[in-house]
């Protein structure tokens, strides 16, 4: 196939923890988005017998139309990428990935007669084990066999996608999702040996928020994760310095009072005299080492632990400043100043509010990272939030597919190139 054909039919897929972003290059600036989840219908239910059989797995925007009892949600609704990594034997999770990919490709099947399949570029966590790449290629091969919609595919690390989308060839990318955070130095390609993985992400912020809600008398709300996430996003704050923030917030309770009403419901959360706790949520995500968190660990909050997934060790309690320094110091000394000068923060876990009337104590994510680095003697840093963080991984995939030559074959040594299926 010619380069022109490949450039015309490049297709990107970002399997995010919460949403899947997908679409061909012709989507322009914004891909299509659906939630990264699949619902397994009850094939033995009486409704199936009455109204005729439906698909076993429902994905996309139609899911709410198929939901059954609330109690079944936890077993029937599968979020495959919830932790960034899918275990090899999680068949149902892989089935959802298959279904969503197929759904995405068929949504954009071109009517043109010259179409003989997309060049598909997907993106995975930089610490994904080899079997995840193998599984994805297997799924793509099956889809192509059935629908003829993938001529070749490749999988690239998410931090590389982010750097590409932001047109920065030399940088450090912090990609923080629900389950973990990857710190990946990039110099014209990811420096794999320098990648540092932290076993802490937005999900840990949610867990602490749930503990705080319990302490404040809202124990009945902590079973719905989406609600906890909303509370975290609306009430959580990053302190410039935790002890000072707690002191000021306890003294001036009205200014820092944390209240949140869930839209369209009667549910309202008011942390009242415990509103100072809102600073714990932000601090915990960036640095869980403050002694105040010990009491939560003692009462059952799971401490972010060190784990090994595939060949990669995930550090649980490493603060983000230390994690960046460790990653950069694994790179050549000459390169290090350039890396500190371009630090890109990507992913929903870096989206925090910093209200103007609390600017003396509450700060945004880039400022927090700069402070963490300054505390460890690293100054002269430039830290940026990614623009359109929701879309940057997908955009990186599109640029990659558009640019990498069609005849550059996949290599299991380098983990790059095109895997062809015909």
């Amino acid at each position, binding site marked *: 196939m010619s380069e022109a054909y490949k450039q015309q039919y490049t297709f990107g897929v970002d399997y995010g923890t919460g949403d899947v972003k997908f679409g061909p290059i012709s989507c322009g*600036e914004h891909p299509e988005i659906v939630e990264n989840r699949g619902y397994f219908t009850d094939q033995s239910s009486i409704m199936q017998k009455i109204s005729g059989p439906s698909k076993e797995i429902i994905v996309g925007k139609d899911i709410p139309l198929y939901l059954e009892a609330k109690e079944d949600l936890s077993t029937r609704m599968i979020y495959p990428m919830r932790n960034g990594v899918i275990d090899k034997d999680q068949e149902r999770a892989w089935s959802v990935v298959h279904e969503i990919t197929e759904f995405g490709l068929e949504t954009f099947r071109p009517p043109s007669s010259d179409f003989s399949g997309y060049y598909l570029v997907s993106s995975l966590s930089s610490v994904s084990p080899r079997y995840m790449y193998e599984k994805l290629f297997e799924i793509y091969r099956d889809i192509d066999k059935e629908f003829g919609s993938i001529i070749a595919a490749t999988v690239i690390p998410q931090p590389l996608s982010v750097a590409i989308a932001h047109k920065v060839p030399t940088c450090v990318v912090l990609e923080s999702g629900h389950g973990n955070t990857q710190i990946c130095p990039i110099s014209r390609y990811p420096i794999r040996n320098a990648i540092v993985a932290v076993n802490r992400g937005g999900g840990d912020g949610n867990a602490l928020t749930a503990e705080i809600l319990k302490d404040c008398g809202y124990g009945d709300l902590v079973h719905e994760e989406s609600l906890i996430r909303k509370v975290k996003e609306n009430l959580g704050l990053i302190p410039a310095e935790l002890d000072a923030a707690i002191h000021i917030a306890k003294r001036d309770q009205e200014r820092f009072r944390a209240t949140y009403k869930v839209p369209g419901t009667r549910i309202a959360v008011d942390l009242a005299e415990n509103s100072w706790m809102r600073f714990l949520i932000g601090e915990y995500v960036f640095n869980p080492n403050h002694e105040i968190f010990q009491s939560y660990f003692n009462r059952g909050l799971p401490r972010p632990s060190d784990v090994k997934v595939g060949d990669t060790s995930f550090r649980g309690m490493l603060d983000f400043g230390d994690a960046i320094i460790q990653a950069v110091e694994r790179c050549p000394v000459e390169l290090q100043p350039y890396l500190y000068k371009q630090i890109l923060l990507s992913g929903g876990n870096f989206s925090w509010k910093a209200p103007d009337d609390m600017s003396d104590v509450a700060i945004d994510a880039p400022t927090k990272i700069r402070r963490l680095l300054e505390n460890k003697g690293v100054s002269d840093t430039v830290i940026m939030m990614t623009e359109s963080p929701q879309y940057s991984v997908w955009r990186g995939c599109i640029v990659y597919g558009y640019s*990498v*030559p069609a005849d550059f074959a996949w290599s299991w040594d380098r983990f790059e190139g095109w895997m062809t299926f015909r």
Partner: protein
Amino acid sequence: MSASPNEEIREKLVGFFKQRGYRVRNQGNANSADRASDLSFVKGQTVLVVKIAANSNLQTRNAILEVTLAAMDLTSRANLVYLAFPKLQASLLDASMLQDRGLGMLIYDSRSIEEAVAPRQFDSPSDKKQSSADIDWLRSRVEALEKTVENLSHELSATRARPIEPSQPRQPTPLQSTQDGKPGTALPSFLKGNPWVDILARRGREPDQVAA
């Protein structure tokens, strides 16, 4: 009811309606309404007629009924119909009965004329023709809509009988790139001026540059 109404009253009524912007309708062009009424006026498209009940005509109960019915008859031929009644006999008539039927009532004596009941606007014959045309048009539209609903109903039944097919795919739009393979003007902003395009285009065509 065969005797002519008093000329003095007629003049007063003409003056009364002229003050309200009406002009006396030309008797030479009188239509059936004008001929049946004692006075006829016009203002724009509105035709107003007045049935005058003179003192001398109201000696019997039947005479009152007769003049009232004659006024009622005019409602099919004029837009506004008044019954002009002498003040002395006005109390013999129940004004609310006239109001119910859309008739206006004028009460007069030798000094003045007063409007006791305002008339209701009736459709003129031309309005009725128009209404009839409107009804015909609406009827034809309803018939067309009924036919459309019937067709849609058939199509819906047929669709239900078929298995659900995937939704219509979004149509990819043609892209432009320059001859040297660099992004053209129609490409998304994240491709334009992106140094990675050149870096990635050399993958596989240069010595291994993977830093790891």
